[in-house]
């Protein structure tokens, strides 16, 4: 029954007859798209191309326009020593870079996982009918509406080891024996970042999933109830498969966001190896150090990584869709 209902969701009807009128409309549509494409090319395309170009040069911020082409040296260069040992240099051979990649991936994995699970629970609750649902739905969005810098500062104070409310509560409830320096200690810094990020973005996840939940026709559940299907089975056999398209989109949005995380980590934690992500490292090289070219290289690699991930995700996601459709 559930599989029958899925068929119309996955496939969209494509018009086979290309009438004169349709062609005309397509032409008009193209004209309407032109301003948007130009705007995108200026604000996204041009800076992107320039960053990529800088990554192949020896640019520094003191002399941006005197940058000269040096090939792939910023990515990887090697030098054969007299003894025959090969010495690798460049971002791809830099342990700091791989440490940042690992931090970013770890952060993205855990934050998105928790946000998906919690977001699903929140969405299911909000999907139920109860009094004051509208107000609750609006209220739950507040963490998402607060600018990240502000919430990072706010949590920074809440997690502070001397004045923070979290340590205070933990001590009073007897959960902590001594105040913990959440953001300072290398062991807890990443956890602190994860907590704040999950707090902030779960509402976003919940909202997207909720939209998916509301698309599911009510009569399926009615039919399942008549057949005596257990609610847990209903969730795994009806809700989850039907909300999957929305869930996939929500997850990809979040992963893209998580992979370029910068502001939260920059504001909340000390600038140490245990939390430094790709964006933080790139920013440091671009603006703090005299390594504009290296920073551009790192930005370009970050861009490539995100692009590859997105393509893979869509590709693998699609394969699964078709498998489900039989």
């Amino acid at each position: 029954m559930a599989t029958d209902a899925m068929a119309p969701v996955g496939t969209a009807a494509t018009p086979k007859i290309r009438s004169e009128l349709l062609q005309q409309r397509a032409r008009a549509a193209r004209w309407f798209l032109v301003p948007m494409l130009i705007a995108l090319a200026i604000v996204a395309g041009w800076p992107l191309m320039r960053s990529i170009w800088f990554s192949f040069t020896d640019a520094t911020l003191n002399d941006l326009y005197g940058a000269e082409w040096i090939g792939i040296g910023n990515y990887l260069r090697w030098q054969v020593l007299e003894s025959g040992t090969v010495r690798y240099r460049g971002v791809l051979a830099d342990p700091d870079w791989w440490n940042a990649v690992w931090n970013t991936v770890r952060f993205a994995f855990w934050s998105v996982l928790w946000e998906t699970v919690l977001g699903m629970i929140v969405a299911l609750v909000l999907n139920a009918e109860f009094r004051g649902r509208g107000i609750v739905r609006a209220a739950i969005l507040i963490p998402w509406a607060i600018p990240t810098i502000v919430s990072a500062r706010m949590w920074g104070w809440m997690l502070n080891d001397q004045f923070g409310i979290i340590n205070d509560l933990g001590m009073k409830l007897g959960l902590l024996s001594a105040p913990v320096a959440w953001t300072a200690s290398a062991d807890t810094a990443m956890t602190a970042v994860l907590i704040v990020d999950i707090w902030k973005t779960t509402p976003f996840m919940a909202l997207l999933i909720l939209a998916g939940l509301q698309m599911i026709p009510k009569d399926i559940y009615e039919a399942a109830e008549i057949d005596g299907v257990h609610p847990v089975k209903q969730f795994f056999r009806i809700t989850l498969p039907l909300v999957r398209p929305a869930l996939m989109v929500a997850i990809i949005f979040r992963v893209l966001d998580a992979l370029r995380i910068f502001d939260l980590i920059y504001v909340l934690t000390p600038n140490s190896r245990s939390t430094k992500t790709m964006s933080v490292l790139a920013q440091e090289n671009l603006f703090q150090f005299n390594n504009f070219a290296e920073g551009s290289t790192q930005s370009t690699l970050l861009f490539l990584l995100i692009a590859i991930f997105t393509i893979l995700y869509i590709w693998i996601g699609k394969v699964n869709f078709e498998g489900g459709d039989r």
Partner: protein
Amino acid sequence: MKMNLMLAGLLTSVTLVGGAAQAAELSIVSGDTGNGLAFLRSQLDRFEAETGHTVTVVPMPSSTTDQFGQYRLWLAAGNTDIDVYQTDVIWAPQLADQFLDLTEAAADIVDDHFPSIIESQTADGKLVALPAFTDAPALYYRTDLLEKHGKSVPATWTELEATAKEIMDAERAEGNSEIWGFVFQGNAYEGLTCDALEWVMSNGGGQIVEADGTISINNEQAAAAIDRAAGWVGTIAPEGVLAYMEEESRGVWQLGNAVFMRNWPYAYALSNGDDSAVKGKFDVAPLPAGDGEGARSAATLGGWNVAVSKYSPDPEAAIELAKFLASEEVQKERAIQQSNLPTIPSLYEDADVLAASPFMANWKAIFEQAVPRPSAPTKTNYNEVSSLFWSAVHDTLSGNGSAAENLEILEADLQDLKGDAW
């Protein structure tokens, strides 16, 4: 291209000639902490009244690292919105290209200032910025607690460690559960470079990169100094000190929750404010010395300066403002209200200044032997050098490897960065 430049130059000079006599609208950036912004505003109001120009203050984050990133970006983009920048003492060699040469404009006043400060702001014969105040940190100590427990002011780090521990334990036994022995700046940022340079230098471990460009940091005395500091975290200092900058440590101190604090002189006036729990209960002394060969008390040279952007649409008025902020009268007010150290020697004997900040009488001597950070020998690489250094120290403080291990890696990293020459 040349044609365009000439045209631009021509236009600018026309505007200059036309605009010289008129009132200008200027902007100055400031990352001042405490009540520094209010003080700056009060001085700017005077400037406005005297000259007829208007000045807007653009507030910035207090971390010097954050400020530098932003200024770097603005200057690289040729931003014309900011006319006057407040610059850290270490920035001159890195930003020299983007600021106007003030040699000529300041020819009449440079001799009033300490020659070493003027020298620190000169890069390749170009006077990049005018000094607004100088900085050399102090050991803040609680006179009431030291007296109560019959202790004297520590002259070495070993003494500080013992005194801090003893007073902290005794106070905690009496129910003062929030008291700590010592707070400093342990976050991974420029401030940690300052703190750690003092530990290393005071222990006879050199100054990271010596004036001639030699990398000297990997030595036993330096490692011992950093290991000793690592032992403070979680014992006499709260573990959170690893995320503290100046203001966080002042927060703990000013609530009366620390026996000792390492901080810059700006905290003196604030700690004596009416809302301060330590008002009248503290004093300052030079930082302790280490032990071993060549040990002495060492203070990192700090200080802030004012520089004029090359892209300022109204450079003459901007230079006027910079000169005003570096002037003797503003420096005097600054010394009285903000307890910032003046860069003009005669002010250290000024009766009004000494009445407000009695410690300044001793500070001239401390300032005169302050240790500069290696910004001059490492040139445009300074920020990266500093970042590598503070990362190695922060790693050691957080228990991530011993100082000897981290300094060995640091030395190799610095060598890579240096290449054939800085």
